[in-house]
C-alpha cells in the first residue's frame, strides 16, 4: 500500500505533490498535537491534585505542627532530681525584654514607664540604652508572666520579648554545693550543673542524683545548729550508703542560694567536703590501726610503750590527756594515743605505710561527679618524721570526701567502692576492690564501737543503734604554722556497727567551746552530739529498728576481747 502511494505521488504534478505531503505533515502535526495536549492535561491535573494534597489532605502536615513544640522542649536543659524523684533543678520558659531603639519614639518616657513597672530598672540608664542607635538592647532578662503582661500593657512601641529559659532550683540553698548553678545563658558554672553540662543540654531524661533531699535537709539543719551553738565559721557533713557508695547527703556551710548565687559572698561557694583539705587528726588513726592489724604486725592485744613522749629531730610527740603507761592497740585507739600510734607505725615501716594509704586513695585527688575537687597535700619526700606524724593524722591534709571514702572501706568488710552522687541502677553490679581483709574490717568495727561506747565519742551514741566512729581534732595551719584555738573538729562513724548501713561524717571549722562543753571545742564535745542527732533522725527516716544492745548475740558481735582499763 505504501509503495503504491509513493508510486502514485511520483507521477503527480509538483505543486499537487507538495500539497499532498503538506496534508500529510499537517495530519502528523495534529496527531502529535493531541499527544502533547494530553501530556499537558495530565501535568495540570497532577499539579491540581498535589495542590489539594498539600492544602487539605496533607497528613504529613499535622505531625509537622505537632512536632515543633516538642523539638523546642528538647532544646531545654534537662531536670535534676533526687533519688526519690524530688525536683532539684528545672528549666522554666520565661520572656526576656529587649528593645529596638530605632523603633522607640520617646526613650525618656519609655524608660520612666519601665522603671515604674519593673524592679531593678534604672530610668536614666535605660533611657540612654533606648536612645542609642543600636537596633538591639537587652532591657531585662527573665520576666515573670505578670511582669510581661504589665510591660505589654504599657504599649510602648519597639519593645519585644525573647522566649528564654530560666533555671530554677526549688530547694535553693539546700543542694547548692551539689547541684551547683548555671549562668544566664543556661550553661553550668558549678557542681553537677557544670560536670554534666553537655549531658544536661542534650538529654531529654532528667538526671537522678543519689542525694536524698530529706537527708540533705536534716544534715543541714543539724550542722547549722551546731555551727550556731559553737560559733564555728563553717562546717561540713556527709552521709554515705555503705552498700553502694552513693552519697545520700552532702552539705557544706556557709552556702548560697543557687537561684541567685551572686548575692552571697564568693567564699560561700566553697564546698568544704571536696575542695577543703584539712589535717584529719585522730580520725586518721582508723587507717593507722587498720594498717597494723592488716599487715599482721599487731593484734588488738599487742601493747606499746606510751609512758613518755617521743622526741624526733626538733619535734616532741606527746598524748593529749596521756595515760603514761603501756597501752594495748585497743586502748591506743580508744584513748587516741599519739605515742602509741607512732610506735605501731614504726613496726609497719615507712614504705608500707605509704603504700597502704595510697591503696585508700589518700595520695591523689578523689574522683566524684563535681568539678570542685582538690588534691590532698602529701609530703614529698615521705621522710621518717612525716611517716610518724601521719600515723596520728598530722603532716598530711586530705579532703573530708577522701576520709569518708576510706572509712567506708574500713567498716564495710574491706571493699573500697567508688563514691558517687548519681543514683545507681538496681541491676548494675557495684564496682569495688578489696583493700583490707574482712577480719581486719570486723576488728575495726569493734574498735570504733568501743570509742563511742567508752572513749572520746560517747556523745555520738544513740541507744539501740550501735554507733561507732572516731573523733578528730586538729589545729588549723595558717601560713605554715599551727594556730592555737582554731581547730577542725570532726567525727567519722557508721551505724549500726554490727552490720553497718550508713556512714556519717561531720566537721566544724573553728568551733569555740561554751559553758555546756566546759570550754572544750574538741570533736568529742562539739561534733559527737551532732552525730547522735543525725543518726537518730536517719534511723527514724529509714525506719531502722533499734536492737537490744544487752542481747548476747549482739554483744558477741562487737565485744573487744581485750582488757581495757
Amino acid at each position: 500500500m505504501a509503495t503504491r502511494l509513493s508510486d502514485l505521488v511520483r507521477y503527480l504534478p509538483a505543486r499537487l505533490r507538495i500539497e499532498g505531503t503538506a496534508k500529510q505533515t499537517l495530519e502528523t502535526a495534529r496527531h502529535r498535537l493531541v499527544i502533547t495536549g494530553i501530556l499537558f492535561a495530565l501535568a495540570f491535573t497532577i499539579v491540581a491534585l498535589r495542590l489539594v494534597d498539600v492544602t487539605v489532605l496533607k497528613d504529613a502536615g499535622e505531625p509537622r505542627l505537632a512536632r515543633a513544640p516538642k523539638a523546642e522542649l528538647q532544646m531545654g536543659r534537662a531536670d535534676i532530681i533526687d533519688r526519690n524523684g524530688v525536683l532539684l533543678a528545672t528549666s522554666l520558659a520565661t520572656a526576656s525584654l529587649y528593645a529596638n531603639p530605632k523603633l522607640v519614639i520617646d526613650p525618656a518616657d519609655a524608660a520612666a514607664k519601665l522603671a515604674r513597672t519593673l524592679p531593678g530598672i534604672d530610668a536614666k540608664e535605660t533611657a540612654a540604652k533606648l536612645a542609642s542607635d543600636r537596633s538591639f538592647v537587652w532591657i531585662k532578662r527573665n520576666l515573670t508572666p505578670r511582669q510581661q503582661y504589665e510591660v505589654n500593657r504599657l504599649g510602648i512601641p519597639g519593645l519585644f520579648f525573647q522566649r528564654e529559659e530560666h533555671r530554677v532550683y526549688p530547694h535553693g540553698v539546700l543542694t547548692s554545693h551539689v547541684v551547683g548553678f548555671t549562668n544566664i545563658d543556661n550553661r553550668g558554672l558549678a557542681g553537677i550543673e557544670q560536670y554534666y553540662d553537655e549531658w544536661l543540654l542534650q538529654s531529654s531524661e532528667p538526671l537522678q542524683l543519689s542525694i536524698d533531699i530529706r537527708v540533705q535537709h536534716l544534715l543541714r539543719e543539724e550542722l547549722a545548729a551546731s555551727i550556731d551553738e559553737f560559733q564555728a565559721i563553717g562546717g561540713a557533713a556527709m552521709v554515705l550508703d555503705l552498700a553502694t557508695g552513693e552519697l545520700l547527703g552532702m552539705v557544706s556551710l556557709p552556702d548560697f542560694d543557687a537561684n541567685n548565687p551572686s548575692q552571697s559572698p564568693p567564699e560561700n561557694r566553697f564546698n568544704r567536703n571536696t575542695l577543703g583539705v584539712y589535717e584529719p587528726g585522730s580520725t586518721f588513726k582508723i587507717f593507722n590501726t587498720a594498717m597494723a592489724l592488716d599487715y599482721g604486725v599487731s593484734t588488738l592485744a599487742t601493747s606499746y610503750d606510751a609512758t613518755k613522749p617521743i622526741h624526733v629531730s626538733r619535734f616532741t610527740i606527746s598524748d593529749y590527756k596521756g595515760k603514761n603507761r603501756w597501752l594495748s592497740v585497743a586502748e591506743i585507739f580508744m584513748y587516741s594515743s599519739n605515742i602509741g600510734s607512732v610506735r605501731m607505725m614504726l613496726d609497719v615501716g615507712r614504705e608500707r605505710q605509704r603504700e597502704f594509704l595510697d591503696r585508700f586513695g589518700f595520695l591523689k585527688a578523689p574522683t566524684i561527679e563535681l568539678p570542685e575537687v582538690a588534691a590532698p597535700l602529701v609530703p614529698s619526700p615521705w621522710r621518717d618524721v612525716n611517716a610518724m606524724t601521719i600515723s596520728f593524722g598530722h603532716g598530711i591534709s586530705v579532703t573530708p570526701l577522701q576520709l569518708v571514702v576510706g572509712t567506708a572501706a574500713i567498716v564495710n568488710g574491706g571493699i573500697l567502692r567508688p563514691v558517687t552522687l548519681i543514683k545507681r541502677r538496681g541491676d548494675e553490679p557495684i564496682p569495688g576492690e578489696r583493700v583490707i581483709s574482712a577480719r581486719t574490717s570486723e576488728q575495726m568495727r569493734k574498735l570504733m564501737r568501743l570509742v563511742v561506747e567508752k572513749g572520746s565519742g560517747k556523745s555520738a551514741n544513740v541507744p539501740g543503734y550501735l554507733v561507732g566512729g572516731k573523733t578528730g581534732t586538729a589545729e588549723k595551719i595558717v601560713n605554715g604554722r599551727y594556730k592555737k584555738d582554731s581547730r577542725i573538729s570532726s567525727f567519722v562513724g557508721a551505724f549500726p556497727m554490727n552490720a553497718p548501713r550508713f556512714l556519717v561524717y561531720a566537721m566544724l571549722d573553728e568551733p569555740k567551746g561554751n559553758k555546756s562543753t566546759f570550754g572544750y571545742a574538741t570533736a568529742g564535745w562539739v561534733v559527737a552530739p551532732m552525730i547522735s542527732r543525725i543518726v537518730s533522725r536517719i534511723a527514724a527516716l529509714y525506719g531502722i529498728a533499734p536492737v537490744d544492745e544487752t542481747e548476747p548475740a549482739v554483744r558477741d558481735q562487737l565485744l573487744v576481747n581485750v582488757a581495757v582499763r
Partner: protein
Amino acid sequence: MIFARTDNSVLSRWWWTVDRWTLMAIGLIVAFGALLTMAATPAVAERLGLEPFYFVKRQLGLLPFALAMMLAVSMLSPREVRRLALVGFVISVVLLCLTFVIGAEIKGARRWINIAGFSLQPSEFVKPTFAVLAAWLFAQQRKQEGFPGDLIAIVLYLVVLGLLLRQPDVGMALVVSAVWFTQFFLAGLRLLWVVALGALGFASIVAAYFVFPHVASRINRFMDPNSGDTYQISTALEAFLNGGLFGRGPGEGTVKSVLPDAHADFVFAVAGEELGLIACLMIVGLFAFVVLRGFIRLLQEQNLFILLAVAGLLVQFGLQALVNMGSTLHLMPTKGMTLPFISYGGSSLLALSLGMGFMLALSRRRYGTGEVL
C-alpha cells in the same frame, strides 16, 4: 464592546476573529496577578528597605502598557507577526550578547541590561520571538523544497542555547529547548530522532547537574530533603496548609515576609496562603484552559506555520506555569521560573504580553485555504 458584524474596521474585524474566551482567561490571570502583587510585594519591599509600594507601583504601572502591547500585537496579520518576531529575535540576541559586556551581575549571573533606567532581561524576549521564527523555519522546509529550514533552526537553537548557558540561565535554556523540541516534534521529526533528542535532553540535565553547582544542590535537596537547606520549600508547603480551602484573605499571609522570592518564584505559595485552595485551583484551571483550548482550536488549523508557532507559544506559557507551580508544590526541584502574568517582573510581563499577543494574532479565525503568508 459592541461591533456590528458589518463593521469592517480593524478593531471590529479583530473583535470578531480573535478568541475572546482565551482573552478573557488571560484577563483573569492578569487580575489574579495584580491582586497578588499588591498582597505579596509590600512585605518583600520592606525587607529590602524600599518603600512598601515600590514593587506595586512598578508592576501595576507597567501593566497597562503590557496589555496594550498584547492587544496591539494581536491585531497584526500573520505576516506582520513573523516580521516582528524576526526583528525582535535579532534585537534580543544582540542584547543577549551585550549582557556579557555591559550586563549587571545579580546573584552570580549576568542576565540584565540597563536601558534608559529600566533593567531588561533580553533572554525573556528570545523565548516568544524564537518560537515564531523556528515555527516558520520548520514550516518553510516542508513547504518549499530545497529550503534548509530545519538546519537553520538547529543552528539558531544551538546559538541561543550557548548564549543562555553562558549567562548562566539554565531555566530559560530548559524552556527554550522544550519549546523548540516540541515544535520539531510536531513538524514531523522522525521518531528515531525524537527518542535520540529526548535521550540527549536527559543527558544534558545530567550534565548540568555536574557542571553547574547550584543545579546540583537544588536537585540534591529535592531528592533528599535532609541533604541541605529546604527552608524555602517547607515554608512554601506550610503556607498552603495555613491557607486551607478559602485562604486567610488577601494581605493576611505570613510567608511573604519570610520567603525571599515571595513576589516572584514563590508567588504561588502566597496565593495558597492568602486566597486558599479554591482560588489556586482556579489559577491552575485558567492556565490549563488557555493551553488546552489553544491546542484544541489548532486541530482545525490548515497552516503548518501557524500551528507550530501557536503550539510553541502555548507550550512556553504552559510549561513556565507548570514548572513554577510544580516547584512551589515540591513536585520538582526548585527552578527560578516566573508564573506567567502573576509573578513580579517587568521583562517577564512584557515578553509574555508579546508572546500572548503573537498567539492571539496567529490564532484569530481566518477564512481561506491556509495561504496566509
